[in-house]
């Protein structure tokens, strides 16, 4: 049981625990917080995979922004719902079964795949500088598109969330 394996075990535990909790909690806020935990664990996983920048970005975006957003949405939509409603949508067993089937298939595929690289290539240390240069040179166009997309999403979300006009 090496250090790396230990870290992986921890990370996997956090991720999966958080995810399961997020999907299983009755309280929406708890689910959201669990999601945040899971995503933070994912960020740790990225770090353990030497993807520093991605990890920090993950924390910044998901824990800092998306989780908060979801919490707000929960508080805004949960105003007038009678408690004690059914937690799961009708026929959720089939849904769970389907999910299970999908996982089985995926696992089967993964285990059957032949890309077992015996030797792990030594950890690359991608400096932020390289990422930035790559972004500015080859992936400039996607970057611009992402910027445009974010702007549009910002405006669109603002408009969607505006109070509805009374008809007429």
């Amino acid at each position: 049981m090496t250090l790396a394996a230990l870290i992986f075990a921890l990370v996997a535990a956090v991720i999966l625990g958080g995810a399961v909790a997020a999907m299983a909690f009755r309280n929406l806020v708890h689910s959201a917080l669990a999601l945040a935990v899971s995503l933070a664990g994912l960020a740790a996983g990225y770090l353990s995979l030497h993807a520093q920048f991605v990890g920090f970005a993950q924390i910044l975006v998901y824990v800092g922004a998306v989780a908060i957003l979801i919490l707000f949405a929960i508080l805004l939509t949960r105003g007038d719902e009678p408690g004690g409603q059914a937690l799961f949508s009708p026929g959720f067993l089939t849904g769970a079964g389907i999910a299970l089937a999908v996982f089985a298939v995926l696992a089967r595929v993964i285990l059957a795949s032949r890309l077992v690289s015996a030797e792990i290539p030594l950890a690359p240390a991608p400096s932020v500088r390289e990422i930035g240069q790559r972004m500015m040179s080859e992936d400039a166009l996607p970057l611009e598109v992402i910027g445009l997309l974010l702007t549009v999403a910002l405006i669109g979300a603002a408009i969607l969330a505006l109070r509805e006009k009374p008809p007429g």
Partner: protein
Amino acid sequence: MPTLHCYLLLAALLFAIGLAGALTRRNAILVLIGIELMLNAANLNFIAFWRFGPHPEVLTGVLFVIFAIAVAAAEAAVGLALIIAIHRHYKTAHVDQMDALRG
């Protein structure tokens, strides 16, 4: 020593959990959360393949994940705005009641 398989299995499990949530929970926000989980599973796959792939010095995987995160953020914002609008209109956030499009 964790190998590619471990990460792929982890991602697959995460994906399955997210899918299960998205398929079974009634609340639209939770469905959205499930979708986020699935997305992150995909991201994890990207990173894992980049890390254990033959050419780690090529940063495509990382950049892809970065862009994916940005897109996911936008998607979450718009999705939540939609949910809020729907809730304001139908006074419910339950997906099994949002069936105005039924034939």
